[in-house]
């Protein structure tokens, strides 16, 4: 079990995560959804240690979670200029020789010998993802991994996630697109106002989608009608 205990994150005086607690099953895919500014990325940054919070908040199998247990795909990815995709993956390859660069890059059709600055947004995302996968860590955190990916790559990523679970990995994933999560997640937690409002099992995913769609319709229909008048 991966447990987050009483996590509070403040930016200046603004409380972003308020005494948040969450229990996630190991060897499963746990989704986290929430509106913009709900604190999804802050939560992931805190787990990874990019934000200074007591590490005792994070317990993995009764031990403190260490950063070395985690591979984290950030929402925005940085690459040095004048570096090829192969150069980038070679960095990771030094630590994990068993990772087959050619085979993995062929899954995503990446032109490894071209400079990364010539890649499209989706290609950069896929390259960063391959770097993360090659790290072979126990916990894999994916922040908005579907952003910029084409349909083919979305499906490939979903299959990869399922295969990773078979290899005893634990995946925490966020997305703005509910459908991309409902097809692969074993549970989805709804983050609202800095706390986990609810955690939902697959049987209730349809209801979750309907609730969110209904809520959005009520909230925006009238406003949009008025704006378009």
């Amino acid at each position, binding site marked *: 079990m991966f447990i987050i205990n009483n996590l509070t994150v403040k930016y200046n005086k603004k409380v972003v995560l308020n005494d948040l607690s969450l229990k996630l099953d190991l060897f499963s895919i746990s989704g986290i959804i929430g509106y913009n500014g709900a604190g999804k990325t802050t939560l992931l940054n805190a787990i990874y240690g990019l934000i200074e919070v007591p590490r005792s908040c994070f317990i993995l199998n009764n031990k403190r979670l260490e950063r070395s247990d985690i591979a984290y795909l950030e929402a925005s990815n940085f690459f040095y200029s004048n*570096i090829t995709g192969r150069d980038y993956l070679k960095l990771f390859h030094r*630590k994990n020789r068993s990772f087959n660069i050619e085979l993995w890059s062929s899954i995503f059709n990446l032109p490894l010998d*071209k*400079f990364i600055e010539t890649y499209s947004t989706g290609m950069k995302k896929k390259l960063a993802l391959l770097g993360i996968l090659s790290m072979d860590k126990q916990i894999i955190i994916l922040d908005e991994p579907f952003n910029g990916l084409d349909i083919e790559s979305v499906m490939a990523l979903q299959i990869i996630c399922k295969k990773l679970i078979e290899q005893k990995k634990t995946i925490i994933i966020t997305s703005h697109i509910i459908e991309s999560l409902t097809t692969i997640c074993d549970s989805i937690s709804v983050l609202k106002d800095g706390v986990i409002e609810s955690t939902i099992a697959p049987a209730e995913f349809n209801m979750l989608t309907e609730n969110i769609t209904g809520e959005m319709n009520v909230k925006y229909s009238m406003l949009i009608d008025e704006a378009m008048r």
Partner: protein
Amino acid sequence: MLSIIELKFRRFYRDLINSPIEYSIVGILIMSGLAFVYNQFDKYPNTYIISGIIIYIIYMIHSQRRDIAFCRLMMKSPQKLFIAEYMLICLPFIIFSLIFNKYQILLIYSISPIVIAFIPRFSPSIFLQRHIYLFGVKSPELVSFLRKYYWLILLLSIVSVTLCFIRVISIFILLSIVIIMSYSYTEYEPLNIILLEEVNSNRFINNKINEGFLLFVKLGLPTLILYPIFNRDTWYLVLIAPIVAYISIVMLVGAKYMSYKPNNRATSSSVILGFGLMGTIIPIFLPITIVLALLYNSSAKENLKKYLHVYNK
């Protein structure tokens, strides 16, 4: 074109107003520099050396421009804007040339901005990949640096070797490579890449310094070997290059990692760092470089402990 130049002047004016202390220092330095140039302008060969340095600086500005795409979008031939800007930089020197009747120098200052404005941006080639790995470079920032400045570094190395028979000059040219190297230390890598090393903060910083220093030694090896052969009376001066380069690299690596935050651009004060970098080629500034190297190095190790605490046990 005039509206873009006006926009740039407005931006410069706003910067000037918003940080009066730093820019006052820079202003005083520019005025002192111009006074120094005026003082040296009538002396041979100083006037030629100064014009060479100024043209080189203008070329560096041109090769590092980030607004080329914007300028192309706004105007049909952005070269006109570049020429106008470079001419403005040259203006004081053009005036000095007229005052001292140095018409050859006047010609250099008048033609160079036009030539530089038309120099196409060097786009790094994949073909250079193999050559770069000959240097044994593994750090992505150094691979990126070598790809970007390969030809410039090659040119500097060749000039440095060919001028070995003249005292000191080749050492200064060699040290100017360190200034170009500072480009490598302006971007922060993702934390994943830092964690890949699986070493504590001390070792991480030391590895970065050593790799940068080794690259400098490899690039300057021919000069470091040939200089003492041609200058037997002042052979010991060749030791200055690696020592000063090492201090500068310690400062640059320290400046990068003292304020490291994943996925951002380096935020250490560029003005102070600029003074430190000047110490690489202008001896009077070297004490600043040494002090900054010491301060930045310890701050960098302390800052990285936050991220590498797993390996700091």
